[in-house]
């Protein structure tokens, strides 16, 4: 264990606890004060992953959950077992960091229109198979009730429109990659969380999204599919919002500050001072 931590520079060792505290405080504030049904408790994890790599990101996620579960005063709740999910999110963030997903890619005119169209095309490509899925069209085939597929299609279209608008308004192609990263992270998170929720918490979350779990079960889904369905609804949205927040924050940091971190230079390119 000592060998592992020696891989990290002192700067990263200083960054991680700050990120953990951000996760916990922001997560709590957003849920309790802004009262929004999203978590936003992975901003710190994703930041560390993007700046310092997958292992640092995973460590941040895991420790955040364990500390939030067991630490004095703030401890409690049901977040501990989801440390695995948090670790995976950090790992993915490290991969996005190495791929320079969050680097600004200023573009203009034609490129923007092309990117906006690409976002639309991706949405269509996602929607058509859903609508053509026999589980949707033929009531005799199992799976989710039909309204789920309609909802998924509608959400995909809305997301595509928002992303296209973002790209166009900020004149930045990165919006596309940021959205893809967020959606992928959300999907993976949902798949990792579903069995944890099923094994430990009877397939529910204790929050408002349990209405969705109930509806899915009413429609015939078993425990793990209902849990997965709920996850696939809320996690991609949550992680995509988080992804954009992280992008906006990173784009506001000075290149000098970023360059000091292991993967920071990938975010900079020709934004140098």
């Amino acid at each position, binding site marked *: 264990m000592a060998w592992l931590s020696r891989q990290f520079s*002192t700067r990263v060792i200083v960054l991680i606890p700050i990120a953990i505290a951000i996760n916990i405080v922001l997560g709590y504030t957003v849920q309790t004060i802004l009262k929004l049904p999203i978590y936003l408790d992975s901003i710190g994890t994703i930041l560390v992953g993007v700046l310092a790599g997958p292992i640092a990101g995973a460590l941040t996620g895991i420790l955040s959950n364990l500390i939030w579960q067991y630490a004095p005063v703030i401890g409690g709740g049901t977040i501990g077992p989801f440390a695995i999910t948090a670790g995976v999110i950090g790992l993915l963030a490290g991969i996005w960091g190495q791929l320079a997903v969050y680097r600004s890619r200023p573009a203009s005119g034609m490129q923007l229109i092309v990117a906006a169209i690409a976002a639309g095309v991706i949405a269509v490509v996602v929607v058509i198979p859903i609508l053509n899925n026999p589980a949707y069209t033929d009531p005799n085939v199992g799976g989710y009730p039909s309204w789920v597929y309609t909802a998924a299609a509608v959400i995909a279209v809305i997301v595509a429109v928002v992303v296209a608008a973002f790209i166009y308004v900020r004149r930045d192609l990165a919006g596309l990659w940021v959205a893809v990263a967020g959606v992928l992270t959300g999907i993976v998170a949902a798949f990792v969380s579903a069995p944890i929720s099923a094994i430990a918490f009877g397939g529910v979350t204790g929050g408002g999204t349990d209405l969705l779990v109930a509806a899915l079960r009413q429609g015939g889904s078993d425990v793990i599919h209902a849990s997965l369905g709920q996850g696939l609804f809320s996690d991609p949205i949550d992680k995509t919002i988080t992804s954009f927040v992280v992008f906006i924050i990173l784009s506001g940091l000075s*290149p*000098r500050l970023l*360059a*000091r971190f292991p993967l920071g230079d990938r975010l900079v390119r020709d934004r*140098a*001072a």
Partner: protein
Amino acid sequence: MTLRLSAATYRYAGARRDALDSVDLEISTGSVLGVVGPNEAGKSTLCLVASGLAPVVVSGRLSGSVTIDGRETTDMRPHELAQRCGILFQDAQAQLSGTASTVFEEVAFGPRNLGLSLPAVIERVEACLGALGIASLADRDPARLSGGQAQLVALAAILALRPDFLILDEPTSQLDPQGTRLVGDALRRLVRESRTAILVVEHKTALLDRLADRVVVVDEGRIVREGPTADVLGDAALPGHGVEPPPRVRVQSALAAAGLGTAAETDRLMAELAT
């Protein structure tokens, strides 16, 4: 033992200008050097470069040489630098580890990092707390101290590494008058009782007046004036460099301007007022 900067020029990574321009400076054991100058003059950079932390920890490019007792700072690792040259910054709480439950453990943080034996760690902690007169704070929670107390704990924590040189970057600027007095008195005591060489950056020239043997004025990354404290702080050109002279000098100038006495007489008056 000497800490010497020779033609030291420093530029932070990604910066467009040099923060320090060809600085020549020297401090030896037992002396106290004051540093004054306007804001953004490069005084903090001077501290980081003199302690070796720049460029070893803070990335940047150093030309010229910085040597501690003949050894280049760029040849040393951070923990070796820490044992030769300690540095104290303005924000006390940011320098504390944030992981110690008592002041004792906070001061022990450094010696423990070096792997010293436990009796040696205990001895150093007690010695440093005593030297600064804060032994009574040993069982307190570092996060709950006043600004001045926290600054003294941070200083004790640095001294626990037994550096030969001590660099203080505006140690009292975030403190209220009481905190300033606390730190000032502790520093005077430290100077009296040890041979640590001290470089102190301060806006409060009154403090330097009583502490420093020599003073340098830094402006735009260069040393523009250097000499014994009384000379430099009494120099009429000082305010032109954005530095406010100490009260003693201001009173003297005011009295002289009003024609109210010779320099010797005002000196005696100020000495009486000071006690």
